């Protein structure tokens, strides 16, 4: 009974509001101040009006989409050009103007690259040798993650942390000719930060690690081999992003083994760096003919259906995680006395369309 009463109440309320809306559609187009749901103080009425507005918007959107599709189909049938597709507005499209974005003809950038700390590895003058270690207390997922990292990064060695000071570890590693150190930091039995220190006096990058999925938790995962993987770095546009890209590049050997068909991807989107490790294989696939929708006299369609297409199939192997840069410090690990090239401060998050990498 109570439910029925509620329904009738809302039914009564919707009707007058609906009438108002139809009268005030013109006023609405001028300005939405006439009847906003937020102006109604009564929660039941307000939620009802809001639900009705959303429903209307959904219907309009569906109508527009259908009209667009009909236009396109009609244009294709006639043989004209279909109307151009509109580009959706995304946060990446509307990113704030950043003056640090690398330009392709910046000679200072190239000169800087020639002289920076990674240039000796990236110019094939020396090979990378990585030391992986952990924080002092390491448990549960930490060791599993490290063993997977060892299989992904070639020429990586794991040493137990013990109670050594990190600055001393940096010294030992420089003496033994390592080119970088990776420290996996664990918090509450879960790896949550990655510290990459370049050697001998390279920068120290501190990343926050999240969304870690180990190999055994991935369905239909593949097993990596010992071939050297190819490296794909995408969307590192600004100067800082470029520097981080080179830092990541210096961790891997510069001569990939294409026969191994393995690829490691670091994709940057909205300041989050996504790490994926895949094995790929090229296959040629014959595309099927689409008889049901094709009309007669469409030569182009028939030709396409007879061709073969080569596609690349991917199989994910290895861990999957995301990184976010917290700070980049010049020189080896020295939080108190070091100069920071970039450190994230909460005051920097001024807008949702501002990114630094």
């Amino acid at each position, binding site marked *: 009974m109570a439910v029925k009463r509620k329904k009738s109440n809302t039914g009564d309320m919707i009707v007058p509001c609906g009438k108002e809306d139809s009268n005030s559609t013109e006023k609405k187009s001028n300005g939405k101040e006439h009847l906003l749901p937020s102006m109604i103080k009564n929660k039941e009425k307000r939620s009802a009006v809001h639900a009705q507005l959303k429903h209307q918007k959904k219907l309009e959107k569906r109508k527009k989409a259908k009209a667009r599709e009909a236009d396109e189909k009609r244009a294709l049938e006639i043989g004209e050009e279909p109307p151009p597709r509109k580009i959706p507005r995304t946060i990446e499209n509307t990113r704030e103007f950043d003056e640090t974005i690398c330009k392709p003809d910046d*000679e*200072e950038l190239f*000169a*800087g690259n*020639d*002289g*920076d700390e990674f240039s000796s590895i990236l110019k094939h003058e020396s090979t990378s040798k990585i030391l992986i270690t952990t924080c002092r207390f390491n448990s549960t997922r930490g060791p599993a993650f490290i063993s997977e990292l060892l299989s992904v990064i070639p020429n990586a060695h794991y040493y137990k942390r013990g109670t050594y000071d990190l600055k001393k570890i940096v010294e030992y590693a420089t003496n033994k000719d390592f080119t970088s150190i990776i420290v996996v930091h664990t918090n509450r039995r879960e790896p949550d930060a990655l510290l990459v220190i370049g050697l001998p006096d390279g920068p120290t990058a501190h990343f926050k690690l999240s969304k870690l999925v180990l190999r055994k938790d991935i369905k239909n995962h593949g097993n990596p081999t010992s071939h050297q993987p190819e490296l794909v770095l995408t969307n590192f546009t600004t100067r800082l992003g470029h520097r981080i890209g080179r830092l990541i590049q210096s961790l891997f050997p510069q001569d990939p083994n294409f026969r191994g068909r393995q690829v490691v991807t670091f994709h940057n989107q909205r300041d989050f760096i996504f790490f994926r490790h895949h094995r790929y294989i090229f296959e040629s696939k014959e595309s099927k003919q689409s008889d049901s929708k094709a009309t007669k006299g469409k030569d182009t369609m028939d030709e396409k259906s007879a061709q073969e297409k080569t596609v690349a199939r991917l199989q994910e192997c290895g861990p999957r995680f995301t990184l976010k840069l917290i700070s980049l410090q*010049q020189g080896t690990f020295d939080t*108190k*006395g*070091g*100069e*920071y*090239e970039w*450190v994230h*401060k909460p*005051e*920097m998050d*001024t807008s949702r369309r501002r990114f630094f990498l």
Partner: protein
Amino acid sequence: MPRTTTVECPGCPPIRVLTFDVLGLVKVVEARAKQGGVPKVVERWGEPDTSRHVLAASINDSKFDPLLAVARKSGVTEVLNPINGDLRGLVPSVCQSDVQPEDDAIVGLHLFKKQISDSSSSSGNIVCSKVDGSENYALFGGKGVEANVWDLDKCTKIWTAKSPPKNSLGIFTPTWFTSATFISKDDHRKFVTGTNNHQVRLYDISAQRRPVMSFDFRETTIKAVAEDLDGQTVYIGNGSGDLASVDMRTGIQYCQHVLT
């Protein structure tokens, strides 16, 4: 990444700044408009080359013969004309890379020689040094080295600082001065230093050996301290990219710029 900056006295353009960077370039940045217009890079001298990495610079801004000395990583010190960047002379320098050449080229050389003897005698590394306006006194400080003031004519140490007493927790922070400057060009007795422990201290030779005033600035090491022309304000910069200007009489911060 810019390493050292020297500001010239405002002449024709309101503010003219020379910056030096890791690639060995010298750029002139000017702000044309009266009330803080957007600064633009007006000229650029030199080719980008990391072996010419600029370590320190100093300017002698006299009216008729301005000189700018630039010390590069390759061990060469160049003397340039700060108006148009012509090379005036080259001084191959013998000593290590921490040194800062001072006002006059001749005095600079003099200081170089002294630097070597100093660092061999004292037990720490000298990181920062400054010569005062009349070029008679010099101030040194470093890691493990307390702030000292030397008389250049007699080449003797006339004053050493004493570190502040242990703080309330009983912790003693080791001395590590990262930057220093005299507070005004005429007075050689007062100077301001910045430490690795994010502290800024004001010392007065004529008063006492402990710092007269000291305050904390944010959390990272103080990398640069510079005095203003009026003899009261001091600009400080730290390792995280924050700048502030402080009035040394009262210790009040005028304004702060946090790098975002």
